[in-house]
């Protein structure tokens, strides 16, 4: 869930300190801050970054960003991408002045038909794609990674601003102390440790999870009522069949199992249909809010809705239906044979 601060994978590694971590809010830092951070006791490296989210594609404003451009000094790529490699034939931008080179994420490459040596237009500049990331990360897939100076020139027209510094402590376990020192020694900077970054994100995730849990609980309850009703109607319509089965010697347990199996099958089919329709809805919504073509989401379905999540949904739907079948199953297995046979003539 935490794609921006997810440790090894994207943007910032675990154990590093992030200064002015909210490019999404439009905050900036002067480049002079880099040297100040570097001079703080306990700081091993201070890597500046310029992160810029794009909310607009071809004059259409989106609620969620579609692309992200990340500028970083050449040679510091691993701070950003961790162990992520480039696809064969690709290289990282050389950073030589006059060479306007970028690396793009695979999703962007597919959408705009980009390959190594392709030209891509960013802020009216024609940049050359020199590499394509080999990643399934949602953020990196939609990233344009370029040398910091080039990013600064493209987005600000000068090299005075950055919006993030990733500071690496000299040794493990002193992250908190170093972050405090940065805040004390450099006025106006907020240095976020791994723990503090999680504290920012977690309440949001917690809210989302609470809403999801509440909504899914209500839906499961409704499903249970629905399956019980359907199974009750089913039993009611087939009273004579169950009474006949009991009359010719079917044990109560067999009738009970029959109803439970039917309810479970309803749940299985309903769960499969729900997963299919839910996946389609997720793709449609994702495409609607990002303007990324539908076809790209179809190929990437399992990244949007994970197979494990699908299995969990299916298993819980089947379990809920199975439980919902218990009352109708008891009703069917305990019916009075002679009464039913008499009333059904």
């Amino acid at each position, binding site marked *: 869930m935490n794609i921006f601060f997810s440790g090894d994978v994207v943007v910032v590694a675990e154990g590093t300190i992030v200064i002015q971590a909210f490019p999404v809010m439009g905050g900036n830092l002067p480049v002079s801050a880099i040297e100040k951070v570097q001079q703080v006791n306990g700081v091993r490296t201070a890597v500046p970054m310029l992160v810029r989210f794009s909310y607009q594609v071809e004059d259409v404003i989106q609620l969620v960003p579609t692309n992200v451009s990340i500028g970083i000094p050449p040679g510091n790529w691993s701070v950003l991408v961790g162990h992520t490699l480039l696809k064969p034939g690709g290289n990282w931008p050389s950073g030589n002045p006059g060479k306007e080179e970028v690396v793009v994420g695979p999703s962007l490459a597919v959408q705009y038909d980009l390959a190594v040596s392709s030209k891509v237009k960013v802020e009216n500049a024609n940049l050359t794609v020199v590499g394509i990331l080999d990643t399934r990360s949602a953020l990196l897939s939609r990233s344009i990674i370029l040398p910091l100076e080039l990013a600064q020139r493209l987005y600000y027209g000068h090299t005075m601003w950055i919006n993030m510094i990733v500071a690496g402590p000299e040794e493990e376990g002193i992250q908190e102390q170093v972050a405090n020192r940065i805040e004390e020694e450099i006025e106006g900077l907020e240095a976020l440790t791994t723990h503090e970054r999680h504290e920012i994100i977690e309440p949001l995730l917690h809210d989302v999870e609470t809403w999801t849990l509440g909504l899914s609980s209500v839906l499961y309850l409704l499903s249970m009522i629905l399956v019980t009703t359907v199974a009750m109607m089913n039993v009611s319509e087939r009273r*004579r*069949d169950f009474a*006949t*089965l*009991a*009359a*010719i*010697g*079917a*044990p*109560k347990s*067999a009738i009970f199992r029959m109803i439970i199996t039917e309810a479970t099958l309803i749940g299985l089919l309903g769960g499969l249909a729900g997963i299919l329709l839910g996946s389609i809805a997720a793709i449609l919504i994702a495409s609607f809010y990002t303007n990324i073509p539908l076809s790209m989401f179809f190929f990437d379905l399992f990244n949007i809705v994970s197979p494990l999540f699908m299995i969990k949904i299916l298993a819980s739907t089947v379990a809920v239906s199975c439980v919902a079948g218990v009352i109708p199953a008891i009703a069917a297995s305990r019916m*009075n*044979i*002679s*009464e039913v*046979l*008499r009333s*059904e*003539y």
Partner: protein
Amino acid sequence: MYRLGASVIVAVNKVSLEIKETTFVSIAGPSGSGKTTLLNLIGLNDHPTSGKVFFKNEDTSLLSDRERREIRLRNIGFVFQTFNLLPTLTALENVELPLALAKIPPKPQREKAIQLLEAVGLTGRLQHRPKELSTGEMQRVAIARALANNPFLILADEPTGELDSETGCEITKLLLSLCKKHKTTVVVATHDERVAKASDVKYSMRDGMIMQDVGL
């Protein structure tokens, strides 16, 4: 005795009846006279509010539900007025059902069911579902189903009630001949005079009371 809404119905009253092995017994009487309730009591589908039902000299009131079910499965075959075939199963599967419940292995189960359906003249209708069969054919399937576990007793409740006169006659003959062949005791509740005439012992019921019809 049973409840129908707020009222209590005494469906069978002071009935004392002994049915001898391999006899064909008919119970005639108007609707509501208690024939079906009597068959349900004999067939162990119901418990008498007073009195006892003996099956093969065993007091059935002392049996558990499981033991009563076992007797119904292995010793009693039922033929209903409205056939009561399971609509989602084919004719063959309907006949296989009691065999499957009696845990007969699949192969002999199928052989027995085919043999019984051939005996009732439905060789070409094995894979038909009840809605694809005529009423006479459905009753033949029901008779084959009733005979599946070689029962000691067959209880038939108005087996010709839903059939036209000609088909009813055929079904009566079929029931008679198969039961003679299998040496099965048959108790038939019926309105049909021809069925009553064909029986070895005739009873008639009125207001829950039974009396033997000696043909005077």
